């Protein structure tokens, strides 16, 4: 019992004086509310992945300004590991990714990769295949949306 009180004492000591540890993305989402509507609390859909992206509205025709931004982000942060064909490099090729995955799943994978690799069954299958954890490239929600638009174009959508 003494020990427990002692540990609590220590815990309190540090709780009081040590600075806060960095918050994870989940605790402090930099989420642009205008992008998607707030989800219903009960809605859990495994095909959408894990993260703050619950609903993505895709427009037709595809949005060219997003595609343009998406290409430049791809070239800077993604192309070292992902080809635009179906060939796997470090990670899977992007060809037809928008046909295999829900847009929400893609954006959650890009913006919440640590949690996805730890908890999402589909993401874990990919890790087993590629054996390299996809790095967190600190892609914002808006940038992830632009990348998604570029993926749609890469998959032949007009």
């Amino acid at each position, binding site marked *: 019992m003494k020990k427990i009180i*002692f540990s609590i004492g220590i815990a309190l000591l540090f709780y009081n004086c*040590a600075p*806060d540890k960095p918050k994870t993305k989940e605790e402090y989402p930099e989420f642009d509310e205008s992008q998607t509507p707030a989800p219903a609390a009960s809605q859990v859909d495994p095909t959408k992945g894990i993260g703050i992206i619950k609903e993505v509205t895709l427009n037709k025709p595809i949005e060219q300004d997003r595609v343009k931004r998406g290409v430049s982000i791809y070239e*800077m942060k993604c192309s*070292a590991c992902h080809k635009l064909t179906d060939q796997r490099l470090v990670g899977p090729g992007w060809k037809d990714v928008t046909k295999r995955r829900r847009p929400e799943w893609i954006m959650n994978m890009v913006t919440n990769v640590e949690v996805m690799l730890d908890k999402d069954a589909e993401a874990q299958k990919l890790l087993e295949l590629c054996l390299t954890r996809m*790095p967190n490239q*600190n892609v914002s929600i808006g940038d992830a949306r632009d990348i998604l638009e570029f993926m749609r174009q890469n998959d032949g959508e007009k």
Partner: protein
Amino acid sequence: MTINRILSIGILLSSIAILFTGCKPKGPQSVTTSGAAEKVYVAPGQYDEFYNIVSGGFNGQMSIYGLPSGRLFRIIPVFSVFPENGYGFSEESKAMLNTSHGFVPWDDLHHIALSQTNGEHDGRWAFGNANNTPRVGRVDMKTFRTVEILELPNSAGNHSSPFITENSEYIIAGTRFSVPMGENRDVPISSYKKNFKGTLSFISVNPQSGKMNLSFQLVTPGVNFDLSRAGKGPSHGWFFFSCYNTEQAYTLLEVNASQRDKDFILAVNWKKAEEYLKQGKGKKVSNVKYAHNFIDEKTDVATSEMLNEVMQLDIAELKDIAYFIPCPKSPHGCDTDPSGEYIVASGKLAATIPVFSFAKIQKAITDKAYDGDFNGIPIIKYEAALHGEVQKPGLGPLHTEFDASGNAYTSFFVSSEIVKWDVKSLKVLDRVHTYYSIGHLCVPGGPTKKPHGKYVIAYNKITKDRYLPTGPELAQSAQLYSIDGDKMQLLLDFPTVGEPHYAEAIPASLIAPNSTKFYKIEDNKHPYAAKGEKQTKVERKGNQVHVYMTAIRSHLTPDNIEGIKLGDEVYFHVTNLEQDWDVPHGFAVKGAANAEILIMPGETQTLKWKPDDVGVFPFYCTDFCSALHQEMQGYIRVSGTGSNVPITFSTGKIEEEPKGK
């Protein structure tokens, strides 16, 4: 068995017994009381409460420890090259160590000054001094990197440096050695009294960028300046310097500079000096040469510019900006208390500690309570400036720090102790032994208006038996004491690197939340950055070959390069494409005379390589980055001088085996 034999066995056995019971080296046994361990225990995964920013002395670096644990987190190279991160080796950082004497790879860093706002720590920058080639360096506390170095002309032995004013208006740097300056520098050493002068440099600090500028220098009579502090609160606008060798000796100072019963504290009214400058009374001196080096935040590349002018004011000519105050026996530390009213001066050969009162100094100046002058500068009567003396405090007082409750903590080198005393009543309250021969000491926030208190740390000059021996050279010993109660309590010994002189400690909450995690690749403006593999290339410019390379877990692009010729200089500009915390990559190529480089996420760093033979040379990542780190490698082919192998580069390209050779 002879008696002799029995005796010798007995002696042998008892020696063995002594050997084993004495397996900890002899010395003061544990003087910590129970409870010390839990006071310094920081559980796994928990953070320390304070950063301790410690000068490295002769290693030219600063080191960062956590308190109360005493754990070493980081070494920040300032005035010395550092193989751990390529500082002074990478093409980007070499210019940081440029001086008017050329590239200086190693200097001596003694004192730390943390930036302040309203007399309190603001956690933005840490300044340090180079003693031998006089310079002041600035470390950005977001990145824990040296971002600027300013050389000081007309300075020799930059010891009284750096000290900071309460809003970081100025960093000041006083010269230890007085020297002849100006046109007339080739003079007999024996002409000290006539030709040698001291300088006090006032370096302004840009409140937004932190950029330093040598604003002006005060020219003083030839003496040695030792340490200093800015005034604060009521004494803001003043600076106090300890000086010794008022005998103006130029040989065997040990004897010849210790003749007088009293040396001086120099009180300087720098607000007045500013007024004189505004009135145009400064003298622009142009026969100087000093380097100003800084890292461009956008490109991350250091540039060095050579400056040739400095503004000077002579304190003997302008009668009312400086005053000497007599101080017993070669004063060393010169510290102002948190209220700004008291100035504590420690004569290192004295048996008392005089404490001066700022209000009394002001009154003495108004009343002209002078005792003659020294080289044209009025000397205030000792008693007229004195608040009082701490009697019989100990032997060899050096430095004083303060807590928030009106107490002072003075280090005593000769008697190896810290003495706690009351600033107002001058009564000695407590004393603890240090192991051994303490130099500087540090209370978190001790030099500010609002000390954070809790601990005092002793930086000892002699280690002897405190740690496992490591040959003749030992780790320096720092010691952490609790000052929460009436009695100081020794909590922890922790070894330090280099030879710490002054250190400051600051609450982690003022620094940790602002710490940079990675450099945004979008903001990288390095002229040779490859922001994405599409921008990688190899370009020949005469005999210079520039490789724009990228690194990401777990490959380098390009990883096959051909077309290099003997006589070429190859520059590997490696951009780390990662955008996550704590994922640096390294780079090394066989035969590089320049060690290797380390590249933080989002950053570009350059390694210069001059191949000295033909062949195929390997390069690889030197910082363990992923499960496939050992795969992160490549080849570069070097051909003979007259070869016509074209420049080619690729990654992941598999060609058919060439026929023939």
